[in-house]
């Protein structure tokens, strides 16, 4: 029995067996309380069966036999030959023997004899059960269950240190990858590849450890909503969904104030007073929904109220007055102007009203790589959608060059890469466009945005950017590679330039600017740019 095979797989076998026995115990305990819940019976069966096949793989025949016996009992319960009550004790005894046998395997690399118990159970199954007759179990011979520590507390600081180290590793890897290109040795390449895979695994696992259910944050709000709404004599239900969605711990700290602000706003400005609600035939009880949802690469937090909604006419007037908008502003621009420090409220309460709040919220969310959007219908309510990256530290980018400078574009924003010949770029109205999937999409050269010279070429690489339903083309000089990079916040000087969301550290230790695609397309200047005569 004690061979290499056994030694190699012993730990995994023991660990998983223990957790199966644990869940068998838990399900059976529940089953005792809810004997009609067949799902619980199935849970016990599933774990027993898995344990049996694991034991068979390890050639622990006594364990296999005992599991088999347990399955027979479960079958008898399922077929209503015996009741749970009649079998519970002997099943627990079987589970205890399984545990004891595992302990023996850990200590002596040998399993316990299960013949006696198996025989006793089989004998029992042959009897005709009386109504209240409980099957006798051998209670004197209780085997202790193996105790195993499954969770430990770790200081948050230590997790941060781990994450920092992973970042350093990622940087070292990028350096190695650059070296590999110059050295070009097969064995080195293979070694770096395998190192890379391990670093990715490590990074993933460290990130997993740092995840915290967003419920930790959400649970602070019911009390706050209760207090403020009482103060304002509004009846508000706070509905919370998706509290189990997990987010990097540092992100939870970062968004706490912003969510507080949005919820306060909803109570203060969104939800109408009871008089207005009854006048408008709305139910007196209003609802604020706080909901987290996870997509592949983002967590989206929705804060919705069923209040009065935003009055975009008033907002437009206020924004024009403050020179934030032109009278020709589009609906999208008007919507976004609420994040630029305008307020339509006359009174400033202790809670909100200065109009600066939302711009601070937006800045904060963008500083951690997120974005915020608003949807609103007058009379029906307002929803804010905060989109956050799953983690702070690492994103995948495409490197491009423009006027001999390297820039990085987040892969999330890219739909496709094209090579377009110069004569395929045509003037449509006052802008330039290419045909993409049978539609004209606007294009412009990145160099134009940076006021540098673009190179004249026969063929231009075009990065097709996806922004909600719209597509745009960015012409660049060359496409380089894609890479996972560690994002660092912008230095102050660069911060002034709103086209960048951060810097990426690359192998040589240089910093490469990461384009902020959202800003790029929202800015008026950009639109003016591509109304210019030539894209390239």
């Amino acid at each position, binding site marked *: 029995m004690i061979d290499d*095979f056994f030694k190699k*797989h012993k730990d*995994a076998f023991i660990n998983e067996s223990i957790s199966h026995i644990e869940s068998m115990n838990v399900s059976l305990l529940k089953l005792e309380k809810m004997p009609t819940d067949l799902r619980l019976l199935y849970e016990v069966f*599933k774990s027993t*069966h898995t344990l*049996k096949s*694991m034991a068979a*793989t390890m050639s622990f025949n006594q364990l296999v036999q005992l599991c088999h016996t347990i399955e027979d009992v479960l079958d008898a319960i399922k077929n209503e030959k015996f009741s749970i009550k009649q079998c519970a004790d002997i099943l627990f005894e079987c589970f205890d023997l399984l545990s004891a046998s595992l302990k023996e395997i850990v200590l002596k690399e040998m399993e316990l004899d299960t013949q006696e118990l198996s025989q006793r159970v089989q004998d029992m199954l042959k009897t005709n059960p009386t109504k209240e007759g409980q099957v006798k179990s051998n209670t004197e011979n209780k085997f202790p269950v193996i105790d195993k520590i499954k969770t430990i507390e770790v200081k948050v600081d230590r997790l941060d240190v781990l994450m920092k180290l992973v970042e350093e590793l990622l940087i070292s890897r990028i350096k190695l990858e650059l070296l590999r290109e110059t050295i070009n040795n097969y064995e080195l390449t293979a070694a770096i590849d395998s190192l890379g895979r391990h670093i*990715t695994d490590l990074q*993933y696992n460290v990130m997993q450890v740092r995840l915290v259910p967003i419920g930790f944050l959400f649970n602070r709000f019911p009390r706050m909503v209760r207090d403020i709404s009482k103060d304002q004599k509004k009846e508000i239900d706070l509905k919370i969904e998706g509290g189990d969605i997990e987010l990097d711990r540092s992100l939870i700290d970062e968004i706490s104030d912003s969510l507080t602000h949005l919820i306060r706003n909803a109570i203060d400005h969104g939800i109408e007073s009871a008089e207005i609600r009854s006048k408008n035939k709305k139910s007196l009880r209003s609802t604020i929904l706080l909901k987290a949802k996870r997509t592949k690469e983002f967590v989206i937090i929705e804060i919705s109220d069923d209040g009065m909604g935003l009055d975009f006419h008033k907002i437009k007037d206020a924004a024009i007055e403050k020179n934030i908008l032109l009278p020709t502003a589009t609906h999208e621009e008007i919507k976004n102007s609420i994040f630029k420090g305008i307020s339509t409220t006359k009174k400033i309460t202790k809670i909100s009203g200065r109009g600066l709040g939302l711009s601070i919220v937006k800045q904060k969310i963008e500083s951690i790589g997120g974005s915020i959007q608003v949807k609103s219908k007058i009379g029906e309510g307002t929803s804010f959608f905060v989109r956050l990256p799953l983690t702070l530290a690492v994103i995948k980018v495409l490197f491009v060059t423009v006027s001999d400078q390297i820039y990085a574009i987040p892969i999330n924003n890219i739909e496709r890469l094209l090579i377009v010949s110069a004569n395929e770029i045509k003037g449509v109205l006052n802008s330039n466009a290419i045909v993409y999937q049978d539609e004209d999409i606007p294009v412009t050269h990145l160099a134009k945005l940076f006021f540098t010279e673009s190179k004249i070429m026969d063929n231009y690489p075009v990065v097709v950017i996806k922004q909600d339903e719209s597509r745009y083309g960015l012409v660049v000089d060359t496409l380089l590679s894609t890479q996972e990079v560690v994002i660092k916040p912008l230095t102050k000087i660069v911060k002034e330039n709103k086209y960048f969301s951060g810097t990426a550290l690359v192998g040589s230790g240089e910093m490469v600017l990461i384009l902020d695609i959202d800003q790029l397309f929202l800015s008026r200047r950009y639109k003016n740019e591509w109304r210019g005569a030539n894209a390239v």
Partner: protein
Amino acid sequence: MNKLLIVDDSAFMRGILKDLLSQHIPPLEIHEADSKAAASDVLKKVKPDLVLLDIVMKDNEFEGVEVLKEIKDLYSNTKVVMLTSVGQAAIVEECKKLGAQDYIEKPFDKNNIIEVVDKYLV
């Protein structure tokens, strides 16, 4: 080198399979994943020739089926062998309809595993 992906939430199972198949001749490049998400990550980087895929993972009856769909969407000619337990005939049929080539019932015979792998790897 043929590429093999093992998807199973049990570290024990993955260990056993890896161990058995590491002695395979000719050698295989073996990747592993313990969940749908981990499998997705591997599939982004690697096109496996054969996938050994556990049906029930993390107590989710359909996680394996979802992985199967993802594999077939990405690489239609990648072969998939399901790892199953008793009482899963219905899911196995479903998986076959979705393009799975074969299934192996746990506990499996050590030789059987190698036979099946050889059958689908050219």
